[in-house]
């Protein structure tokens, strides 16, 4: 039994090594970052595309048309809740990808679209990747494949956090330092959980 669980622990670790490193890197990086609102924001890259709004279309249909026209990689049609009007009453929405986001504004009178492209840094990119879960709407094959990998890795993480302590208890349960580390980790979690409620 222990030999089998050891194999499972090891094989799961090898199969999800990349994303475990991604989780580790972004968690470490986030620890030393300032509050979200204080992070430097690079100026977006602005560009324009010609686009004529067809007559008698709803806002949602117009933005769906804009999405089809722009063919932004790794995006999906904008969900209704992302559709807004800006200060000048122009129709606007935002398309998110792991690389960042693009705010699209329909300049109806000018027959064009304004694109503000906000590109993620590598750390932000990894952060987005870790948040690209099975819930994420995707039409792009790469996103779909990554979602599946992410989903697999989450269950892997849960299984490994169970098989790991099992292997300790099955092999060296009396190891004093292991007991101390386990007590420190679990104890600090429980105390913090209780005071956080």
């Amino acid at each position, binding site marked *: 039994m222990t030999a089998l669980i050891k194999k499972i622990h090891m094989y799961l670790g*090898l199969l999800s090594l990349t994303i*475990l490193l991604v*989780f580790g890197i972004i968690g470490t990086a986030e*620890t030393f970052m300032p509050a979200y609102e204080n992070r430097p924001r690079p100026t977006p890259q602005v560009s324009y595309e010609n686009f004529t709004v067809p007559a008698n279309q709803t806002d949602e249909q117009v933005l769906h048309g804009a999405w089809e026209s722009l063919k932004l990689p790794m995006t999906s049609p904008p969900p209704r809740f992302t559709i807004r009007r800006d200060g000048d009453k122009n129709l606007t929405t935002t398309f998110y990808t792991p690389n960042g986001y693009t705010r699209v504004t329909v300049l109806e009178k000018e027959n064009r679209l304004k694109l503000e492209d906000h590109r993620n840094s590598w750390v932000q990119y990894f952060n987005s990747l870790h948040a690209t879960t099975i819930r994420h709407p995707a039409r792009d094959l790469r996103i779909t494949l990554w979602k599946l990998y992410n989903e697999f890795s989450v269950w892997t993480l849960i299984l490994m956090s169970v098989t790991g*302590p099992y292997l300790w208890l099955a092999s060296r349960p009396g190891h004093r330092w292991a007991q101390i580390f386990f007590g420190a980790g679990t104890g600090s979690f429980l105390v913090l959980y209780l005071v956080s409620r």
Partner: protein
Amino acid sequence: MYRWLRNTHLFLGVFSTTFVLMYGLSSVFMAHNRWFTDKPRTSESRHAVPAEAASDARSVARHLMERNGMGGEIRQINVRADGFSFVLARPGTFHEVTYSRPAAEARVKRNVVGFVAIMRRLHHIAGLWHDDLIMNLWGALLGVVSFGLIVLSLTGLYLWFKIHQERRIGVVLLLVNLLYSLPLIVLMRMDS
């Protein structure tokens, strides 16, 4: 070397296991949110806050913390002509506070969430910049556990490699992982 790395893997692993389980479970709660429902329990109360203790939102928050046992991080401050509103947030409890200057009174809506929602919120705590000590402790432990995850991955790789009879199948699994994930990471990054 082997013994030292094996112990490092063991110590970091057993220290991190509860946190890793929390991150794993909360990821499932978020990714499959339709499977889990967790509506907050709410209650309302009113508290007198004298004008001298209400120069701004933070002073009202401080007053409520000291006199009424509330706690957490001050967020979403909105200043209005007749007062202000803000949120006092802990992972399990949100106090939505609306302070009225004319009435010298704070109306507090207390939202208490259950296990699933707390786990989701804990997942998002990061950094050492919070005003609240507890949030900073979570942030610090996230850092320790995350760095631990990197060390665990690398020591785990070494420990696997030292088991000769597992090398062949291990190399296959590792290649499957790398050939699946690395091209995806590169291809997604390149395309924007």
